[in-house]
């Protein structure tokens, strides 16, 4: 896996970046991938931001994990975000484990892995790092910013930091301030990792803890109705209950599988750092308690999308963003998409959702071409 990691695209940012925690970093790697072709005018670029466990490989087969990219349903030739027309850029976030500056990387000062000596990073740090990538690619103004969940938070943060850098802004299934419930759920995952005796041990990883964290998180990405319809009380082996603690129910087996496969592709410390960054995200606080100020004078076309069965980032939290945008007269549209697929809806084949982002991006592009 490590040899393949060396072949991925990386920008070494040779400028210094002062992180929110106060630490100044320089010459740090930012791994990224692009899809489609940047046109002559450089006006067809879309920056996609990944969520907690995503990476820069948003579509096609991920060369490292050999699995389909996280946004395969949305991004690709002829898809909602059509790479025949648009140039899609996606970077691995700071703190990630797919080649960007993160706890899995070697600290040049000590020549050892960062691990938990890695600095605490924020959503703002992630976004500021990605701005260097745009500068490197020579893109002065994006067609669109898009992302769901933590990707949506980065979209909001980007819009607040750089109000003139995108024609349109698509935060999906997210929130402007991480809720107590979401902090609690993240803490549950972190505690599972930290309770694993292999955590912080050299040459070992807290796989069991990370798997439990993933299992718990995975439940939050689905809806009660979705789970009930897919699994109900179906048993793993057709027979009867085993009267043991083996995985009797299909849902148990499914979750165990989700946990087991996750540890092969994700770093436990990255999980700690990235969930922390989500918890620290409070755009309202950044603007002294008035979220509207984050979008004041932003001329971008906003399209906020939520999902009816998402209880992790429910419609009401998405609507707070809409309310703040309306309060400052921004160009905003909002729709709640009906779906039983829970928070994960933005990653899945939800036709109404895909149609909405496709038509929105196309109409924005047509308008700037007028």
């Amino acid at each position, binding site marked *: 896996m490590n040899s393949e990691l060396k072949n991925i695209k990386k920008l070494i940012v040779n400028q210094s970046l002062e992180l929110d925690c106060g630490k100044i970093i320089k010459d740090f790697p930012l791994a990224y991938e692009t899809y489609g072709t940047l046109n002559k005018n450089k006006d067809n670029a879309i920056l996609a931001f990944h969520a907690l466990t995503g990476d820069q490989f948003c579509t096609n087969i991920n060369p490292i994990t050999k699995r389909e990219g996280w946004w395969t349903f949305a991004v690709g030739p002829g898809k909602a975000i059509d790479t025949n027309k648009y140039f899609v850029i996606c970077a691995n976030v700071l703190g990630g484990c797919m080649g960007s500056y993160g706890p899995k990387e070697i600290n040049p000062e000590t020549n050892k892995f960062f691990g938990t000596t890695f600095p605490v990073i924020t959503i703002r740090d992630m976004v500021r790092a990605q701005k260097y990538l745009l500068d490197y690619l020579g893109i002065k103004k994006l067609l669109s910013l898009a992302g769901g969940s933590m990707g949506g938070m980065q979209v909001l943060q980007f819009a607040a930091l750089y109000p003139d850098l995108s024609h349109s802004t698509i935060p999906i299934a997210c929130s402007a301030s991480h809720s107590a419930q979401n902090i609690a759920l993240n803490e549950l995952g972190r505690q599972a990792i930290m309770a694993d005796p292999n955590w912080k041990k050299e040459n070992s990883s807290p796989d069991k803890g990370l798997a439990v964290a993933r299992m718990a998180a995975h439940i939050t990405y689905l809806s009660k109705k979705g789970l009930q319809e897919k699994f109900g009380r179906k048993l793993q082996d057709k027979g009867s209950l085993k009267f043991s603690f083996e995985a009797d129910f299909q849902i148990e087996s499914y979750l165990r599988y989700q946990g087991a496969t996750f540890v092969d592709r994700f770093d436990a410390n990255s999980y700690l750092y990235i969930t922390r960054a989500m918890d620290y995200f409070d755009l309202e606080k950044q603007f002294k308690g008035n979220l509207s100020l984050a979008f004041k004078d932003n001329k971008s*076309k*906003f*399209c906020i999308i939520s999902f009816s069965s998402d209880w992790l980032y429910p419609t009401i939290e998405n*609507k707070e963003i*809409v*309310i703040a945008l*309306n*309060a400052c*007269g921004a*160009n*905003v*549209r*909002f*729709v*709640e*998409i*009906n779906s039983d697929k829970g928070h994960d809806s933005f990653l899945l084949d939800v036709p*109404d959702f895909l*149609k*909405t982002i496709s*038509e*929105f991006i196309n*109409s*924005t592009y*047509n*308008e700037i071409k007028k």
Partner: protein
Amino acid sequence: MKKEFEVISKIIENNKRVLDVGCGDGTLMEYLKEKQKNDVRGLEPQKNLVQKCIAKGLPVIEGDAEEELAQFPKKSFDYVVLSQTLQAFLNPEEVLEQLLRIGKQTIVTIPNFGYWKVRLHLLFKGTMPVTKNLPNEWYNTPNLHMCTIKDFVNFCTKKNIKIDKSMCVTEEKISEITNKNIGYKNIFSQLGIFLIE
């Protein structure tokens, strides 16, 4: 474009900020945006219609006017438009107050329950009127608070709402409502259009 929207778009000057409450599929908004360079926003409770608007590039938010209007700042629009939906709200009085707060001027259109066909229907058939403009039965109509042109004018007087312009649509013809002809217009018009503040 229907007569009603013709009248509304004529009232609204170019380059103004307009909020269309209950904007439907965005027909009026699109016209105002493309032909009159208006800076438009829309509010619509039906998801499929909101999606249609987004596809057209229109900034429309999904939501119910009775809950969503409070988020818009005072006098943040030059015009707020409410087309034939006042009668469908649980509390039209409160909605109207919100519209007047948000807009420097407000355009309200109402299906006229004083229209002669409506009157005759009730008089002779003795059942709740069903007409081209009011196609539903009493048990499935979205209209909770029907009023006549006269009712609306009286309401404005009572509430100290200034009527800047009042028009009506009669069999596809547009005319003005005056103090003199209101009794007549209240019988023969299907639709009243009011510019208020």
